[in-house]
């Protein structure tokens, strides 16, 4: 009744890895859009926007991602009246989660651009949107890239909790294969290795980008 761990089983796990990567990519993209809005709201001149965005970040950084996932899952069920697939809930939850973290990272990057840059642009007669778009953001992007790449590792790892509500990414795929092969000593370390194979290069890249930025100075013109 129990079967061995062969090529079909490995294929199933690798297929799960694709879903892990897909979910991470969707969350990074959609969360990136949300994060941009959050970051701009955080540096807005409107107090209300700053407070709302700050509250959003605090809420998502101050609660477990697993709880956010459960709330998305049960919240969507409440809204639509039917129990849905895991996919809409996990994409929603991880998009909101990524949006909060990216928003905070990018706020930091925008505020790290020296205030003189704002003043100089203003003195040249640029309006605020133009200042932001043409002067501040191009400089902030350079500062933002290393921590954003670093966050990607955190995001990929955190998608493992999607397995808990039954979304078949690589962790859940591994679990299912353990259930049919009874080889936990083989499968779970393999799953861990797969995560490591994906995350470690990204971590190394983040570290390298950070050191390069350090070597060049803060990225802003020195006086």
């Amino acid at each position: 009744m129990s079967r061995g761990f062969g090529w079909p089983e490995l294929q199933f796990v690798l297929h799960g890895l694709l879903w892990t990567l897909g979910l991470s990519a969707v969350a990074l993209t959609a969360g990136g859009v949300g994060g941009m809005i959050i970051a701009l709201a955080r540096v807005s001149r409107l107090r209300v926007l700053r407070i709302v965005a700050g509250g959003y970040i605090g809420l998502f950084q101050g609660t477990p991602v697993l709880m956010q996932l459960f709330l998305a899952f049960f919240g969507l069920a409440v809204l639509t009246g039917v129990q849905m697939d895991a996919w809409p809930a996990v994409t929603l939850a991880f998009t909101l989660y990524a949006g909060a973290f990216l928003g905070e990272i990018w706020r930091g990057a925008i505020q790290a651009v020296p205030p003189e840059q704002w003043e100089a642009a203003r003195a040249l007669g640029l309006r605020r949107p133009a200042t932001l778009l043409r002067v501040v953001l191009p400089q902030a992007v350079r500062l933002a890239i290393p921590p954003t790449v670093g966050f990607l590792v955190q995001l990929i790892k955190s998608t493992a909790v999607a397995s808990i509500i039954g979304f078949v990414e690589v962790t859940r795929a591994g679990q299912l294969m353990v259930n049919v092969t009874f080889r936990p000593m083989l499968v779970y370390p393999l799953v861990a290795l797969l995560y490591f194979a994906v995350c470690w290069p990204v971590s190394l890249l983040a570290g390298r980008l950070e050191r390069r930025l350090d070597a060049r100075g803060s990225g802003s013109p020195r006086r």
Partner: protein
Amino acid sequence: MGYVFQFGVVWEHLPELLAGALLTLRLSVGAFVLGLLLAVLLTYARGYGSRAVRGPVVAYIEFMRNTPLLVQLFVLYFSLPAIGVRLGANQAALLGLALNFAAYGAEILRGGMQAVPVGQIEAANALGLRRWRVFRHVVLMPALRVAYPALASQFVLMMLGSSVVSAISATDLTAVTNTLQSTTFRGFEFYFVATGIYLAMALAARAGLDVAYRWLFPPLLRLRSA
């Protein structure tokens, strides 16, 4: 939408939720203490060990930081019994959290140690202090002061991340919530309140750790006011 929210049932089960929250807190604090001790050892081994020691230490730190806690817990709880190591769910949760925290702690401490001036270490060596004592008094303590804010943040992250121990049937706040929602069918309400408890714990921990910082590491130089 025909759903009517009912929070009454949640309040009836509040004692159970709080018992779960207490275990979450105990696991987090236990893992912090164990993990920090291990982090100090790892940091020492990385800084003073031979090549043969440093390699595995760095590999351990990198591996733990680049794999999900959930999978690490699965290995501890589901894989190890296959080679005869059986841990209870709560034990495996504590061990997993501690091993995970140790890797992050070691990385944070390394950053803190880089802030210790080399001249200070040379001075201690010149005074004839033993290597471990130099490490402890001259390197570690100042490094801890520098690393404290990052360690505190990491503690809060771990406490929130610990909600995944419910997946190996440890009876923390998340697991209690899972059980209650499956018997009452009030999923949204229970998760909503449990999330609120996590948020309160995170805010309280952050505030408490800030107070502890001022108590543990008073300002080095006190300017005497006339």
